């Protein structure tokens, strides 16, 4: 124990090392604050939906109530859905800045609505967010390198190495103690602010422990790399240079190269093709006999098949039916598109097994539910909600039931928890 205390005292006396640890703690805290502020903004935007929506629906209800036409009600009312940030989202914002987390849908064709984005400034999104994941994945290794690159070479250059190597087992215990102490300090600089922020945000204790373990593992990887380079007995400067080069390759060059390779190797049907096909499918309905559309619709929705036949005048149930039939005709395209996205994502994840930087990023965004999987799950929730919304309005349209002001209150509400 006294040996540990002694080493700790030695380390604490190194002004540069302590400045580095302090700086890392400050950067971590700043990233956590920035992440929490962003998540707070998103939560506030979601909380503001209720009032805005009440105002909007209230105005539509006021004039729909005059005609009591369920079709108009369905056509003009947009219903909000949202994807609330998970408690851990502040740590890894992932795709939440470029993918919509609020989307309003109406009972019309969903394929024309579900890919809509929200307003965001592309120039701000371009460099990526300054969040905890960034500090851990990009910056922490640089601090490990700064503190560990000259552990042995520094002693050699100071002329103390021979003496230390004469210790039992070549001083292995000494190097281990020194490395572990540095690691512990860096780990605390990252882990303590994180644990505090996670505690405030209500992250489950288990998840906090997993992430603290992840942080330790990632730091250990870089410390191990430093130790390996150290064994080559180069000068401190050569160690630092080669470690920084390794950092560049592992954190910047290989992931970007991987991105290029994955996008080339796994082509994804452009989403724009779905949009083009959707428009054709929907508008074509105006030029074919209306009965054809209804037959196709009733085939997939037999519960409304006994609805009154169409007259000569426009009826909204036909309009909604051809939107629905249009959506259904695209199911194959939609599935292929989604599979393409998932394959790309899975390939990138499996790259994480060989590239720790990618692995840590994937694990963090996965746990924070800010990755593509979460985005697709949100889309599934929207699909499910859209189905309930349609069925609600169909109940009025296909039975020619009047839709009054009070009926707006019966419309299904989006429930973020269950979809």
């Amino acid at each position, binding site marked *: 124990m006294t040996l540990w205390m002694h080493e700790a005292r030695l380390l604490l006396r190194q002004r540069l090392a302590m400045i580095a640890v302090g700086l890392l703690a400050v950067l971590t805290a700043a990233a956590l604050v920035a992440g929490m502020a962003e998540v707070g903004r998103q939560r506030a935007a979601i909380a503001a939906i209720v009032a805005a929506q009440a105002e909007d629906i209230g105005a539509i209800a006021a*004039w729909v109530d005059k005609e009591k036409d369920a079709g108009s009600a369905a056509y003009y009312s947009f219903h909000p859905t949202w994807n609330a940030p998970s408690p851990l989202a502040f740590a890894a914002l992932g795709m939440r800045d470029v*993918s919509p987390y609020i989307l309003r849908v109406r009972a019309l064709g969903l394929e024309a609505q579900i890919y809509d984005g929200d*307003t965001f400034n592309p120039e701000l999104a371009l460099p990526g967010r300054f969040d905890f994941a960034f500090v851990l994945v990009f910056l922490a290794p640089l601090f490990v390198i700064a503190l560990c690159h000259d552990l042995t070479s520094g002693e050699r250059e100071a002329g103390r190495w021979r003496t230390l190597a004469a210790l039992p087992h070549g001083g292995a215990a000494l190097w281990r103690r020194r490395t572990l102490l540095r690691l512990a300090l860096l780990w605390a600089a990252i882990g303590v602010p994180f644990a505090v922020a996670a505690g405030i945000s209500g992250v489950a204790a288990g998840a906090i422990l997993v992430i603290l373990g992840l942080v330790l593992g990632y730091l250990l990887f870089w410390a191990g790399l430093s130790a390996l380079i150290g064994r080559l007995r180069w000068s401190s400067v050569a160690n630092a*240079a080669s470690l920084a080069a390794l950092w560049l390759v592992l954190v910047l060059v290989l992931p*970007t*190269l991987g991105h290029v390779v994955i996008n080339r190797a796994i082509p994804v049907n452009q989403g724009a093709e779905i949009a083009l096909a959707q428009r054709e499918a929907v508008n074509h309905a105006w030029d074919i006999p209306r009965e054809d559309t209804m037959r196709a619709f009733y085939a997939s929705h037999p519960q409304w098949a006994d609805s009154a036949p169409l007259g*000569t005048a426009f009826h909204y149930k036909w309009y909604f039916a051809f939107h629905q039939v249009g959506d259904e005709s695209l199911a194959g395209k939609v599935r292929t598109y989604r599979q393409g996205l998932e394959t790309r994502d899975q*390939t990138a994840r499996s790259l994480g097994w060989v590239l720790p930087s990618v692995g840590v990023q994937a694990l963090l965004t996965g746990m924070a539910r800010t990755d593509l999987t979460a985005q697709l799950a949100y889309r599934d929730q929207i699909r499910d909600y859209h189905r309930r919304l349609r069925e609600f309005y169909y109940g009025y349209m296909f039975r020619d039931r009047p839709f009054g002001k009070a009926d707006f209150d019966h419309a299904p509400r989006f429930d973020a928890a269950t979809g």
Partner: protein
Amino acid sequence: MNAATLIALDELRLMRRNRVAVIACVLLVLLTLVAVASSWAHQREIEDLRARHQHEAEQAFDAQPDRHPHRMVHYGTFIFRPLSALAAFDPGVDAFTGNSMFLEGHRQNTANFGDVNQSSLLVRFGQLTPAFVLQTVAPLLLIFLGYGAVARETERGTLRVLMMQGATRGAIVRGKLRALGTVALLVVLPAILGLVALAGTSGAASLPMAVIVLGYAAWLLLWVTAIVLVSTLVGRSRDALLALVAIWAVSVVLLPRVAPDIASAAVPLQNRLQTEVAIARDLRRLGDAHSPDDPHFAAFKRSVLRLYGVTRVEDLPVNYKGLLAVEGEKVTSALFERYSGESYAAQGSQNAIVGMVGAISPAIALRSLSMAAAGTDFAAHRSFLEQAEAYRYDLVQRLNRLQADGVTYANDTASDADADRRKRIAAGNWEKMPDFTYRAPDGATLAGRALPGLVVIAGWLMLAGALLAFATCRLGERR
């Protein structure tokens, strides 16, 4: 041969003997070539795809059968943003903006299907483009090659030997600068050649290209100067390396990410739901086209009747429903323009804040210079969106006028069995609608937008040069 040249040659010889340095240089050149090739292939692919989609969309529009014109307003049209000529060098925000837009009546849609939403999580690690290599990787290589340039001489005492042999301080520093500058030139050359080749095949304007070359040359020269400066100021090469890597990490990796956070906290952006609800609220205030007693539309009706000297809309020589559609679109579009203008302004001030941070991180200044000159920054995207909106408005109003002139009011309001047929107008009308043509900003505009970034980098270069001159005078005085 003068002393500076001799020193430069000696430094270069030393670098050539350093196997790691040679390998690093070769790898960087290879990386640049891979970046040029992959970026070029990728952009070509995107360009072809967008051109094909654009063509399909136009054909589909023209091939529509006889229709009621208002059906065509809802049928709408798709437009695809063409890439700028230099996007293969620096794609900028292209992957983030979405590149297809659906244009229809009564609605202003967003650009959808950006690459960022169709790629894996790796997209957030950056994009492997020539611009990325030169902005991020090349300075680090120069640091590794040059950190010891002067510090090594000080450390080993060879500086005194050199000076005793008659080399002046200025000659030593100039020699080191020249050697590292030669390496920088070697590093930048493949990318510049790639740029020229790209421009040759895509017909880019020469002025923005010149600005890009100038900007990156200044950027690498700035690093060369800064590296020699730190190497001169710091006595030990180890400290020089750590200090330089720290400067690089802060200015190239950290600040560009922190600045957007500051900007988005300082200037909030309205989200789509808020905008849509606000537009709907304003529309209700302006007038409700559905309501016969609405003051705005009642006044409009009176003015139309007065203009044609009739008392009933049925007696108008034109279809009143068409006129109403024209008026309605005018009202909504004015609102769209106001709200999108506010959003653009907010994003513009966000970008201005980032630009201010760029004064302390020339990396940000270089990035905006590069994107602006390549025509892939927010300003270029905004000009696409504005052209799209102008085109949308024009197209919708042309169709609305077709409804006013080509469909009679009696037919338009009828709902008998045959009414649907009588409401339709000939398919030939769709072909007469103009296609969307994107007018790319010209070379002078692009170069002009890139100028502030160039000024910032030039300012930094001058500052670093002055500091180096100052440090040179004191070289070897201490200790």
